[in-house]
C-alpha cells in the first residue's frame, strides 16, 4: 500500500504559461504534466529512461520527464509537445512528421518530435548522423526510424513542408 503523502506546492512555466501546482513529493514531472495539467501528449512508456516517449524540454534541454521529480522543476521553464503549436497550426516539425509518414501508431511521436526539436534549436542544420544521434534515446516500434530521420532532415535542409 502506498502511504499518502502531503502535497507540496511549486511554480514553474509550462508552454509559456506560469502555473502553480501541488504535487506529492514523489510525483515525477511526467505525473504532474499528465495528471495535474492534463497535458497527455507526453507519454509514459517505460518509466525508467529507456524509451524517450516522455521527452520534454526543461530549460531548453531534452529530458525524460519520467526521470525528473516534479519538485525539481520549481522555477524552471518546460516545453511539451502541446507547446509547439503556433496560432492553432502544427509546428513545421510536426507537419514534416505527418508529411513524411513518420507517424504510425503515434505513441513515440511526441517524444521523438521534442528530441528532434531540441536538436534543431541548438543546431539548425544537423547532419543525418547528428539527427540519428539525437534520437538515440527514443524508441519507435512502428516506423523503422527512416521516415522519422527523413522528416527531421527535411527541416534541417531548410525545406519546410509548407514551402
Amino acid at each position, binding site marked *: 500500500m502506498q502511504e499518502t*503523502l502531503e502535497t*507540496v506546492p511549486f511554480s514553474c512555466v509550462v508552454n509559456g504559461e506560469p502555473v502553480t501546482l501541488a504535487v506529492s*513529493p*514523489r510525483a*515525477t514531472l511526467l505525473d504532474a504534466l499528465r495528471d495535474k495539467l492534463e497535458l497527455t501528449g507526453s507519454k509514459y512508456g517505460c*518509466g*525508467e*529512461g*529507456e524509451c*524517450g516517449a516522455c*521527452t520534454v524540454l*526543461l530549460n531548453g*534541454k*531534452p*529530458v*525524460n520527464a*519520467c*526521470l*525528473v*521529480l516534479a*519538485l*525539481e522543476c*520549481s522555477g524552471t521553464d518546460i516545453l511539451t509537445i502541446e507547446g509547439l503549436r503556433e496560432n492553432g497550426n502544427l509546428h513545421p516539425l510536426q507537419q514534416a512528421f505527418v508529411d513524411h509518414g513518420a507517424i504510425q501508431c503515434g505513441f513515440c511521436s511526441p517524444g521523438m518530435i521534442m*528530441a528532434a526539436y*531540441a*536538436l534543431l534549436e541548438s543546431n539548425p542544420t544537423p547532419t543525418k548522423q547528428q539527427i540519428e*544521434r*539525437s534520437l*538515440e*534515446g*527514443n524508441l519507435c516500434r512502428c516506423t523503422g526510424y527512416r521516415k522519422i530521420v527523413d522528416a527531421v532532415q527535411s527541416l534541417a535542409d531548410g525545406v519546410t513542408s509548407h514551402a
Partner: protein
Amino acid sequence: MLAYHRPTTTEEALALLPNATGTVSLYAGGTDLLPRWTRGIVPWAQTVVDLKRVHELRGVARDNGEICIGACTAMSDIESNATIREHAPVLAEAAARIACSQIRSRGTIGGNLCNASPAADTAVPLILLDATLELARLENDKVERRTVPIVEFFKGPGSTALASAEILTHIRVASRPSTWLAKWDKFGTRPSMEIAVASVGLALDLSNAKVQDVRIGYGSVAPTPLRGRAAEEVLKAKPLTEESMNQAVDAAKAEISPISDVRASESYRRQLVGVMLRRMLERARNS
C-alpha cells in the same frame, strides 16, 4: 519520500544530513536513483537533498594548470566544455557515449562516480587522467575537505570511500603534454543506450619511440573500475613491439576478474578486453 531540500551551498547541504528525518539520500541528476525508487527496487529515501543548486558543485574551471570539475556538472556540459575537450578529450568522448541526450542533460559526473557501478563510463577515463576527488564533510560545524585519488575511491559495486555524511564536491585532473595520447572505448551489443559489456582505456606517451608513460584502465570487468598496473608494467620504458603488446594483453587478461551476467560471460569479457587493448596498442603504435 517526505522532505525534498534544495540547498545552495555545500555547508547548507552538509548541515541537512545529520538532522534529516529517516533515510536520507543525496540527489544529483536522479538518473540512477529515480528508476530504482519508482520501480520499487529500493525504498524511497525519506529525505532527499538535491545538490544541483549548490553553486560550487557546477561547472568547469582552470585552476593552476588543473581542470576542476564540479560534481554536479551534467554529462552534456562535460561533453561540450571547451576546456575539457582541449585538455582532457578522452573524458569528453566518454561523456558523449553515455546513454542518450536526455540522460546526458540530467546525469552528472559526480553521480556517475558515487553510484560506483563497475560500468560507470567516466571512471576509466578519469583513471587514465589520474584524477583526484575532493570530498567535503562537516566537523564541528565547519566544512572539512579531503582528497582521494580516483583508484582509492571505488571500494566495490555501489560502494565508495565516501563517509556517511560526506559529499563529492570536485574532480580534478592535470593537463597533459601534447605527446600524451589517451583513448577509451566501450563495447556493447548495440551502438547506443548501452551499458558497457567491457570498456578499456589506454593513455600513452610514446615520444622518442619508447613508452615514456602509460596508464591502462578497465570497466565492467572487476568489482570496481580498475587500473591495469600489470599491463602497464610490461610496457614501460620499452618500444612498443609485438612481444610487449602480447605480454600486455596477457597481463590484462590475468589482472581483471570479470563475472558472467545477463550481458556477457566471464570468458567473453576476458577475451574482449584482450582484443580491445591489443587494437588500441596497435593503433597507438601506427599513429
